[in-house]
């Protein structure tokens, strides 16, 4: 196991302040501190070469978990072992094996070209010249960003900056890469480029990726397995498609009948199955088994002119899941 998280909890001491100048004065004199439990009793194992997606609403604890794994935070209790290293000891050998990209934080030097930050990383990670040239040219080629290398970071677009951030994070060829909202604010083309790149890198180098994203498509396209957090607690760890099926087992079914059908039989069927019927087209959103029964009966009546199945939008499914997660998970 490459990453092992056991009984991990993290709490922060925070204080609340009333709005306005009165609240500011009151808070200056006396602060009402309380503990905020960002993560509670988390257990997680990640294998080498896996792409794990961490899902959760805002404030669920996704970024806190990433920060604990990379070693930026000390846990309140519990342990994390990453390739037998304890992250928050920040052993330099450990830091050479991991990397993190935080979508909302810039890790490159703002006022100088990204190529200078790459050179700095080359020396910090003690990458030899040959490997540096090879990896850099490959990454630049894949992310299609060669002509922007010598432009100051502050003059780059958000998408170009993110690509540069990813290059900086991968130059030393880490075994584990943590991506926190890597596609945040990017246009669809850049998003898709980054997804393709992650999949390619994972296949090519067996790099382990742990990804958090608010874009369902990121998770859907990159991760087979997801780890779901809700208010600091883990509520699901497993196959993404199974989660979607358990939340919304229905599929959309469109069956176009030929013109010579018997309308009485269809009316009869409509009493048995829940579907709409308009202009010779039957449209239904039903679970897999019921859908099969309906299909068998329809095929017995008449062959379809056209027939199609559609999965329901994953975004909607996840929205209803996060509205009441306990309803779907037993």
């Amino acid at each position: 196991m490459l990453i092992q998280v056991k009984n991990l909890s993290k709490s922060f001491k925070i204080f609340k302040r009333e709005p306005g100048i009165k609240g500011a004065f009151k808070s200056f004199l006396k602060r009402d501190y309380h503990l905020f439990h960002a993560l509670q009793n988390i257990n997680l194992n990640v294998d080498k070469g896996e792409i794990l997606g961490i899902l959760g609403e805002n404030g669920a604890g996704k970024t806190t978990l990433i920060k604990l794994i990379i070693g930026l935070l000390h846990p309140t209790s519990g342990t994390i072992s990453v390739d037998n290293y304890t992250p928050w000891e920040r052993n330099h050998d450990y830091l050479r094996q991991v990397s993190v990209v935080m979508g909302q934080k810039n890790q490159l030097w703002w006022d100088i070209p990204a190529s200078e930050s790459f050179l700095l990383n080359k020396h910090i990670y003690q990458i030899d010249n040959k490997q540096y040239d090879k990896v850099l040219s490959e990454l630049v080629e894949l992310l299609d960003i060669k002509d922007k290398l010598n432009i100051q970071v502050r003059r780059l677009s958000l998408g170009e900056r993110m690509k540069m951030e990813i290059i900086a994070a991968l130059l030393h060829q880490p075994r584990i890469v943590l991506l926190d909202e890597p596609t945040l604010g990017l246009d669809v083309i850049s998003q898709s480029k980054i997804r393709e790149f992650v999949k390619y890198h994972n296949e090519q180098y067996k790099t382990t990726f742990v990804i958090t994203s608010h874009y369902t498509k990121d998770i859907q396209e990159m991760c087979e397995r997801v780890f779901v957090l809700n208010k600091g607690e883990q509520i699901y760890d497993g196959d993404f498609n199974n989660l979607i099926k358990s939340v919304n087992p229905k599929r959309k079914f469109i069956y176009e009948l030929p013109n010579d059908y018997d309308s009485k039989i269809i009316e009869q069927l409509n009493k048995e199955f829940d579907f709409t019927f308009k202009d010779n087209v039957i449209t239904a959103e039903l679970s897999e088994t019921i859908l099969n029964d309906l299909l068998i009966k329809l095929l017995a009546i008449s062959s379809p002119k056209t027939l199609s199945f559609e999965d329901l939008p994953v975004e909607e499914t996840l929205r209803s899941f996060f509205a009441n997660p306990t309803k779907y998970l037993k």
Partner: protein
Amino acid sequence: MVSSIAIKYFSVLRTNWIQALEYRANALVGVLAIFSGLFIEYQIWDLIFKAKGYTTVKNFEFNELIIFIFLSIIIGQLKSSWHSSGEMIRAIRTGEINKYLIRPISYFWYHFMMFIGFNSLYYIVYSIILFGFTIIFKGMIFHTLASILCFFLALALSIYLSYCIYFIMVCFAFWFGEVRSLVVSYNLAMLVLSGQYVPIRFFPDYILNIINWTPIRYLVDFPVSIATGILPMEEWLSGLLMATLWCFVLSICSAIIYKLGIKDYEAYGS
């Protein structure tokens, strides 16, 4: 191994130079700002000497006092860290420090190189000014080769000591978030107490005694006293040893406070 570590930290310095040169106007104004300080000090002491008809003040003749103060201002600038310490505090408060903590590099030494890198332009320009002083005030500074060597050694210790003090203050941001007022208070106090604008020899004895027992003495007064020959040669070695001891003590304090602080660090922001 040693060379790759040296290259690692030198590359931080190099990147900082490139960054400093990016904003030409800022770099030029920063470097030239020293001249206003020198000019004002000259005018003040010229007025005092002329108005009161003094030939000496506390055994300093006018030219001796002026070169002592000029050197003090320059060294005071070289060891100060208004910019770097402000940046470090901001980085802790906003979570920007994360980008240093996730890399295999010591935060203490990384920022030391940033501190040196930021002040490098001053080092170059002030070296030229120092060379000019040696010619203008011929025979009043750097009397021997030993005084030049010991001065630069004392200066290096002063810069390191000063950095350690700033680093310790900056680490309080791990607990309090914002500590720029602490750094500003320290900077203002040091303008006077380290002898940057008035030689500490002008202070009452009881204050001087306290200063002599702290690292403050080694920040400005000690290297300047060596350069001007005010400090007898036999006291140089003991002074250098005391400054080294203070460097050692403050390095340990920095390491302990950083270790405690980083444990409480909450990595604000995403």
